[in-house]
């Protein structure tokens, strides 16, 4: 058999599935861990290979069989998601590894990578539905009650199926609306976020992280909703996302349980990505795509640090000072740097995306920018408070060494390098995400033009406006003028309005 004849993408997708089957036949958890680790590492390598292969071939889509393909949007996301799974496994203490955990991790990797690389609406919907099973399995295996989780996920599944079935025949506003609500439930957007903090508290942190941090709902919104959504619908969704970012940021500040803190931080950050998608402007889409990547790295790294701490010290509270810095300084630095990256600290991977996001929001009004800055501020407060609670305080005495293991050390190095090198390589990433945003917006406009005949002149005017924006945006980047005419920039009325809003 000639292995080279296989596409790397196929191998990347099949390997986790094969791995899950192989692990199912292993009896000893330690062997299952080794086997799982091998499969995850090879999948990561193949994912990188697939992305590099795509970058080396100047085609829009490397395979176009309408099922799984790699394109500009997904090329960086495949290795990024594979890395998230690898880091999740690396952060798992060997003493806590079970065979079912390894199987769930490999299945989650298969589902997440398949969703990202799928171009078929029905496959995406099917995999999103299938992904519900994994956290339920985890909760069930730990003897936790499932009712709350299942209630939300049943609503998600029903709305998703209904929206998908209705949008197969015609892209009516109602159908797209159902899809949007379903994906907002999946993303944990206010007021439909109630399933996420309990999931983080009751399920294993690894499973919860993989379910939430992969942010597959972002891709689903791009593929299923964005091409057909009306402006009003996106605005309502965007407002809900923004409210979630601020609300969950504030809740993260007052948490006394580390898992609830992490859950609310994840909610706040992931809602920012969805908000940027729904703003549907070139710069906001660019910001969303960059933020998607930085969120995976930063919150994945933060989760890694929390899991490693929990493996040593058990359940962690934020209501007192634990003083773990002296025992595990590497984890303290990992926690801190990833936390800073999550809130867009300069020099880290999150800086440019946050700057782009807030900058792009200026066109929607000062109040929006203010809300985004407020969300970022609250998240930063939450992270610093958690850092002080976990790592400062009187050093506890232990009879055994709690130093990080070599595999954890490797994880810390990878995360730290990604956080800082990601910051350095941001310009090239932003450039490539620009192109993708341009394509997506064009697709969105095309979708709207198809419906234009039905919706009348008002929406046509909106399309004209957006097309003009796009046309202006496509022009080569001009050097900023030394100073624009002040009246041309903002009218006095607009400025007065901005001041009043502020």
């Amino acid at each position: 058999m000639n292995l080279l004849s296989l596409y790397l993408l196929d191998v990347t997708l099949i390997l986790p599935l094969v791995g899950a089957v192989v692990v199912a036949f292993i009896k000893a958890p330690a062997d299952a861990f080794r086997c799982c680790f091998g499969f995850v590492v090879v999948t990561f390598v193949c994912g990188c290979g697939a992305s590099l292969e795509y970058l080396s071939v100047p085609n829009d889509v490397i395979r176009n069989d309408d099922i799984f393909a790699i394109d500009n949007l997904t090329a960086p996301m495949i290795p990024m998601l594979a890395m998230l799974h690898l880091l999740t496994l690396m952060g798992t203490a060997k003493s806590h590894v079970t065979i079912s955990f390894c199987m769930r991790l490999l299945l989650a990797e298969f589902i997440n990578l398949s969703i990202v690389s799928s171009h078929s609406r029905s496959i995406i919907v099917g995999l999103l539905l299938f992904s519900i099973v994994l956290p339920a399995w985890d909760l069930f295996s730990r003897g936790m009650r499932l009712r709350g989780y299942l209630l939300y996920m049943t609503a998600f599944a029903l709305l998703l199926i209904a929206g998908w079935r209705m949008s197969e025949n015609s892209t009516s506003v109602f159908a797209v609306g159902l899809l949007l609500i379903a994906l907002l439930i999946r993303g944990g957007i206010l007021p439909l976020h109630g399933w996420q903090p309990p999931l983080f508290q009751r399920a294993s942190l690894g499973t919860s992280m993989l379910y939430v941090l992969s942010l597959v709902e972002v891709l689903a919104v791009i593929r299923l909703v964005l091409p057909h959504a009306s402006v009003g619908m996106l605005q309502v969704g965007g407002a809900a996302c923004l409210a979630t970012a601020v609300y969950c940021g504030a809740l993260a500040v007052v948490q006394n349980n580390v898992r609830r803190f992490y859950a609310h931080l994840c909610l706040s950050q992931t809602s920012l990505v969805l908000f940027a998608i729904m703003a549907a402007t070139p710069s906001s889409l660019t910001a969303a795509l960059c933020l998607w990547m930085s969120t995976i790295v930063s919150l994945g790294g933060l989760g890694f640090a929390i899991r490693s701490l929990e493996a040593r010290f058990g359940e962690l509270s934020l209501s007192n000072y634990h003083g773990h810095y002296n025992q595990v300084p590497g984890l303290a630095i990992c926690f801190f740097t990833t936390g800073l990256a999550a809130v867009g600290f300069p020099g880290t991977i999150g800086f440019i995306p946050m700057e782009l996001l807030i900058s792009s929001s200026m066109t929607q009004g000062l109040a929006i920018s203010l809300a985004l800055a407020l969300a970022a501020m609250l998240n930063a407060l939450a992270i610093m408070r958690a850092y002080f609670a976990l790592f400062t305080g009187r050093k506890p005495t232990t009879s055994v060494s709690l130093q990080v293991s070599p595999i954890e050390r490797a994880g810390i190095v990878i995360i730290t390098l990604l956080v800082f090198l990601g910051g350095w390589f941001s310009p090239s990433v932003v450039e490539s995400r620009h192109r993708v945003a341009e394509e997506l917006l064009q697709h969105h406009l095309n979708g709207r033009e198809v419906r234009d005949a039905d919706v009348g002149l008002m929406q046509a005017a909106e399309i004209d406006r957006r097309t003009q924006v796009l046309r202006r945006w496509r022009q080569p980047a001009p050097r900023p003028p030394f100073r624009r005419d002040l009246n041309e920039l903002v009218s006095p009325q607009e400025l007065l309005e901005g001041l009043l809003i502020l």
Partner: protein
Amino acid sequence: MSFENLLSFLGLLTVIAPALLVMIFFVAFLWDYRLHEQTIGKMIQSVIAISLISAMAAAAIMVVRQIAHYPIEVGDWVITPSYHLRFEFVLDFLSLSYVILTLVLCATIAAFSTRYLHHESGYNRFFVLFSIFMLGMVTAALSDTVETMFAGWEMVGLSSVLLIAFFQERPSPPRNGFRVWVVYRVGDAALMLAAILMHEINGAGDFDHLTGNNAWPAHDPLLIGPHFTLLGVLFIVAAACKSALVPFSSWLPRAMEGPTPSSAIFYGALSVHLGVFLLLRVSPVLDSSPWLSVALVVLGLVTSAVAYLSGRVQSDIKSALALASLTQVGLIVAEIGCGFRYLPLFHLLGHACLRTLQFLRAPSLLHDHHQLEDAIGSRPRAKKAEWEQRLPKDAQVWLYRFSLERGYLDNCLEKYIARPFAKIFLRIDAMEQTLAAWLNGDQDESTDQTTKRKPH
């Protein structure tokens, strides 16, 4: 090498040297390699020497060649049609004065700290944070774009907060560090919004656009309008947070929890003046509206008055020095509001040097005082000010309580902002947990406790 290239090289070397030091610490962390005290001391001194010599050489060349303003373009970091982020430094009177001051004081503090913290368990941690602080200060001082300023500003804030929590085994340093972080984040958010508004107004975040084609402190007469007023307000909020102006003054005495060298350099000399430096750098914006100038004068004088009164009743030397420092910072801000530019700059430079030396002298001064008390057999009596004696008794008592409570600023912020915020969101969180428990059908189980949960 032409002198332009030489100037660019020297300017960049001033920033690159501290950046390299931070990089060395980072690589050491990645390799899990613990640097020796002596190695760290030598590295710090060498880096500061290189940086300082570069800055002074650049200043000398500019004086000889009579160049008032020399921008150094590092390059465009990100360019999109709607957003563009450029890193650019500038060599002018303001930036070179402040960067030389920074490096001189950093050299003094580094030399002092290598002995003062000898064999201290957090020696490495102190110098890592010190190097981040120095990089931040140099970056902010030489910045010619608001983004570059923001990067330096954030580094200074972060390292300051972590140094306040340096003695992390006690609960109060992290607690006070967190309070300072809250105030700093408000300032950071204001600066970030200002940066973005500046992009909207000018199409770029360059400070050059505020001064026209002239060197600082000249300003472009076209900078008039409500958008510039809003921009000025955001800059003032950012500066007020960083320089502990009213109503954000309460964090400054709390910041004295850190080791003496960090208190000296951060809150006596450099960090507390960074807000003032920002106001000087964006002074063309402040000139655009008389209301901004009036606000600055009022803010500065009120800060100065509150800090003076509070400083009079302090019982520990570091807090007294911090509040004395704030008194001067308030006056400098008022000078800026009055339209002076060189006066506040020289005031800042002189004050920073004086205060650093006072802070460094503080521990040994206490020793001297003890000797003095032993010699005279009692405590030396503090004299009341003339005007204090003329006040009615009730007013004296009220003023004493007002001063002791530091103008009730801390209490007000805690009572009207922090506590209601925590109360509201804790209640909301409890409601959410109750709802989640009800949906799960486990009302009898305590929702905050995840009993029988395995860690993974």
